[in-house]
């Protein structure tokens, strides 16, 4: 299988600010790579380099086997890009926005109109097709922007934080749309701040922080590195903490942690709900009534905690 996207030691500096440094990426055709990192990690900068919008200060990259810096025009013919902030024209209707993009891909008038209709249909925007985009909700704008990236069904698609700022329902809708793209065989690079999203959509995940890749693997592998899911049991009285820990020790895979302040015991588990059921049974037998009982999935914060010893936080500038 050929690689649709390759980056080798890719770097970009702005004066004294290092936005991206020594980044290596390989995305085989037909797969989805997630670029996972907090605000300021260098995700957008990476996408902009790969999509011909900015020139790297070091390293090289290839899209569809074409050197991006040497032949940006050729690369533009085979990519679709939806940037971090929806680039739709507020004063044009949904239909006009997509028709314009089609014309700029040189589709011809009729074909452009036809394609715009199809995309509006596909993205459930038909009802709003003739309204100026100014009147669209955040989720609708985002979908319209994504539709703009797909006008010519490009083989390689870049999505920069496609769900940031969306309400949970719109997010689910967007996930559906992205899954469909993947099924249709496109190669995708998407960025996100949410491990859950990367887990759901991506074959492979690269975690970046301060412009550097700090981990790579499938969602399962990354979670494995962090010890996976946790079971958390909160109790009403401090005296119940130790007996609860005893129960969790027999259910979990490592030594339970006790948080006196929160009156909570946590332990890493491997078998998900089966462990949960077992814990309920044993807690009941031990006559402990939890005030809360839940499975905690690892988040980006846990990844960062594990990988860097620091929680993911906004990074004002990766000066290194």
């Amino acid at each position: 299988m050929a690689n649709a996207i390759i980056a080798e030691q890719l770097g970009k500096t702005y004066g004294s600010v290092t936005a991206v440094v020594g980044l290596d990426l390989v995305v085989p055709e037909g797969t989805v790579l997630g670029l996972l990192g907090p605000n300021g990690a260098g995700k957008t900068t990476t996408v902009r380099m790969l999509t011909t919008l900015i020139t790297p200060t070091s390293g090289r990259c290839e899209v569809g086997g074409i050197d991006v810096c040497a032949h940006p025009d050729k690369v533009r013919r085979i990519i679709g890009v939806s940037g971090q902030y929806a680039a739709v024209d507020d004063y044009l209707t949904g239909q006009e926005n997509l028709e314009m993009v089609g014309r700029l891909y040189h589709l011809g008038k009729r074909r452009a109109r036809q394609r715009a209709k199809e995309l509006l249909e596909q993205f459930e925007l038909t009802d709003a097709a003739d309204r100026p985009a100014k009147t669209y909700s955040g989720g609708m704008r985002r979908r319209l922007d994504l539709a703009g990236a797909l006008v010519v069904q490009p083989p390689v698609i870049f999505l920069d934080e496609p769900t940031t700022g969306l309400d949970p329902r719109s997010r689910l809708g967007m996930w559906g749309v992205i899954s469909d793209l993947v099924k249709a065989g496109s190669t995708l690079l998407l960025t996100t701040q949410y491990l859950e999203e990367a887990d759901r959509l991506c074959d492979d995940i690269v975690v970046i922080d301060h412009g550097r890749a700090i981990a790579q693997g499938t969602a399962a592998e990354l979670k494995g590195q962090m010890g996976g899911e946790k079971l958390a049991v909160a109790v009403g009285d401090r005296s119940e903490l130790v007996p609860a820990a005893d129960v969790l020790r027999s259910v979990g895979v490592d030594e339970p942690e006790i948080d006196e302040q929160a009156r909570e015991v946590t332990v890493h588990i491997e078998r998900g709900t089966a462990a949960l059921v077992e814990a309920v049974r044993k807690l009941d037998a031990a006559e402990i009534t939890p005030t809360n009982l839940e499975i905690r999935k690892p988040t980006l914060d846990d990844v960062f905690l594990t990988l860097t010893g620091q929680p993911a936080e906004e990074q004002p500038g990766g000066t290194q």
Partner: protein
Amino acid sequence: MSTALEAASDGWVVTKRNLLKIKRVPDLVIFSTIQPIMFVLLFAYVFGGAIATPGINYREFLIPGIFVQTVAFGAGITAIGLADDLQKGIVDRFRSLPMSRGAVLFGRTSSDLINNVFTVIVMSVTGVIVGWRINEGFLRGVAGFAILFLFAYAMSWISAVIGLSVKSVEVAQSAGFIWMFPLTFLSNAFVPTSSLPSALRPIAEWNPISSVVLALRELWGNAPAGAANGTGFPAQHPIWLAIGWCLLILVIFVPLSISRYRRAASR
């Protein structure tokens, strides 16, 4: 499609997109119509009696000046439009498409030119109502308008460089216009250069605005007699000088905007 055809088609697609915005925000049209009418009326009736223009009615003298000033300010819109597109990320979208490099700029300057043509039509009607006439026949009349629009187009490209440099709509709103005040007032647009302080007179006479205004006055028969037109080379060859200035502006500012566009977008 050949590259040239593609480029023209891309430019036209962007032009149409810009014009649609004017249609969707009719306030823009209303104000860009009211302002020139107001200018014509204010200058004609407030200053009309106070300014001496030997051999010609002040209103006839004034109208070409107002035309030139108005299209210059109309060209300032180019800076705002481009800054807006940059700020909203629309330029990023355009730049990720396989479209021709200059299309965004040619499209923008073309739609702003069309806007200016519309404004000039409104002003011409107002001008005729207050007593302005083209006295030298149809062909010279057309030639005058051609120079006026060439000038408007050239000014749009200066404005484009400003919009691409400031990158923010708020700044473009002042930076795009502020320099036009000295440029238009230090000219023969509203008063004969002979009435200016002698230190400023050469500046006003060589000012491209003055050349364009004088060219229009000559072509349309709105020029005052003798020294009121100024002296020396600019007064003797206003038409060629006006065309020369416009071409010079284009030769400098078209490539400059295109290179600015590339850099502004690829920060």
